[in-house]
């Protein structure tokens, strides 16, 4: 054990250093909530490591220092036991003090977290589906309510209020570098306030087991400067771009004639399905299939041709399309900026 401890520590530290640059890491905070939590994690870890080392020393000493084994088990030195009793009582007292301290610490951290979103101007409703995120920007004017999927744009440096719920099973919304997680529960509405300090792309993913494709239920929070966010928001409110090329025009026709139209919505066309992600501006997103594939012509074609190979069990069926039909639909979708 003694031999092993240093190895474990060296490995641990090496691995830590390697991974701190993570993209979806609680140790790489990019917002006030995650910073508070990262500090809390490091503080707890340090304290716990110290306690652990002390216990290990207390364990190792008798193994190394005591000269001989006891002969008669029932002959006990009462004075020694009394001294030990004092040590044990002190240790228990210290434990209690540490625990009370940690309880208070986590209580105050909780209050700090609760204060983050008190003046949020933007409210976004996030609805979990098997296995994608519906994102709706609330607005008092009905025509300004904006619906998109999987990628959440927010203005950097401003607190944003997320109202989260689910229509099927329980999911959990978690973007580690911005905030802790919160569950999406059918029949309940939870509130999560987030704030990104700086512009950037922060990955998150579903953290509550939700069925076959729980592993591929990613999301992105894209924090942008206010003016860029406003521009994005205005773009997204527009109906879908009209197809530019002949191929894309054919693709639109096919989109409306083939299975796509049964589930998906493209604003400004008769396609109005609400049970699958809104595709009005799909080409403006960075990823496909809830963070599973990066957005590219090839990936779009692959996803449409064989969704069950990429996300087995997902609700996107294999549509029986010819190569030309597939190309046309991809061309059409690519134009939906």
């Amino acid at each position, binding site marked *: 054990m003694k031999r092993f401890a240093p190895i474990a520590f060296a490995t641990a530290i090496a691995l830590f250093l390697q991974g701190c640059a993570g993209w979806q890491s609680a140790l790489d905070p990019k917002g006030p909530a995650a910073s508070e939590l990262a500090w809390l994690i490091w503080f707890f870890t340090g304290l716990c490591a110290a306690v652990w080392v002390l216990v290990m020393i207390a364990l190792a000493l008798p193994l190394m220092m005591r000269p001989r084994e006891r002969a008669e088990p029932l002959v006990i030195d009462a004075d020694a036991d009394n001294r030990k009793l004092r040590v044990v009582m002190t240790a228990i007292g210290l434990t209690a003090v540490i625990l009370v301290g940690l309880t208070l610490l986590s209580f105050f951290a909780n209050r700090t977290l609760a204060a983050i979103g008190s003046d949020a101007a933007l409210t976004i409703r996030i609805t979990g589906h098997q296995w994608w995120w519906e994102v709706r920007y609330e607005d008092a004017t009905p025509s300004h309510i904006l619906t998109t999927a999987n990628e959440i744009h927010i203005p950097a440096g401003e607190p944003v209020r997320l109202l989260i719920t689910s229509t099927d099973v329980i999911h959990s919304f978690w973007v580690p570098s911005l905030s802790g997680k919160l569950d999406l529960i*059918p029949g309940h509405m939870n509130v999560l306030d987030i704030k990104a300090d700086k512009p950037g792309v922060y990955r998150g993913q579903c953290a509550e087991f939700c069925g076959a494709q729980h592993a591929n239920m990613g999301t992105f929070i894209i924090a942008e400067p206010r003016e860029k966010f406003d521009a994005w928001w205005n773009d997204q409110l527009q109906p879908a771009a009209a197809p530019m090329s002949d191929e894309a025009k054919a693709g639109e026709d096919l989109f409306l*004639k*083939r299975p796509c*139209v049964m589930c998906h919505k493209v604003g400004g066309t008769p396609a109005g399905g609400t*049970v699958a992600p809104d595709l009005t501006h799909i080409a403006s997103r960075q990823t496909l299939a809830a963070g599973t594939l990066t957005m590219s012509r090839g990936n779009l074609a692959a996803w449409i041709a064989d969704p069950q190979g990429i996300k087995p*069990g997902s*609700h996107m069926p*294999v*549509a*029986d399309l010819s190569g030309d039909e597939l190309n046309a639909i991809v061309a059409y979708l690519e134009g939906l900026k």
Partner: protein
Amino acid sequence: MRCAVAVLFPVVLMLVACQREERDTRPQSALGSGEQPTPVTTLEPGGQRPSPTDNKAASFEANAFHLSEGKRLFGWFNCSGCHANGGGGMGPALMDEKWIYGSSMESIHATIRDGRPNGMPSFRDKIPDDQIWELAAFVRSLSGNAPSSAAPSRNDDMMAHPSENRMPNAATLGKSP
């Protein structure tokens, strides 16, 4: 004798279970298209023709996963818009034992795929074939035709009717006690 039962029982159980619990999400072309000439009537001169079945229909009908997928699609594709949860509205009721165009899987599949006069649209290109089979299997389960060990249970919604696995058996449906 007892040995034979002891050996056979798990085997039978295994075969039944495998079929019921499999979850194939890619098209099952190995089973054939399942397409059959679908007559509007079963009346034929010279006695009744055996009803056409093949593996495809059977593999969908007895499979719990496909039935539940059919149930989901029934809601997603707004079949209730006309058939109102199976009770009937603008379109005919699906929960009784009356079938205008035949009660077999193949007939229901053909109805959804090709449409029928008086309002049932054709979904030929709009729904992939396997999903049509799933819908057909679910529609049959609405009147208690699916094995109750595979039929879907209630949804997490307001209750519209008893769940499909608690439907009275098709044979007794519609006959007053």
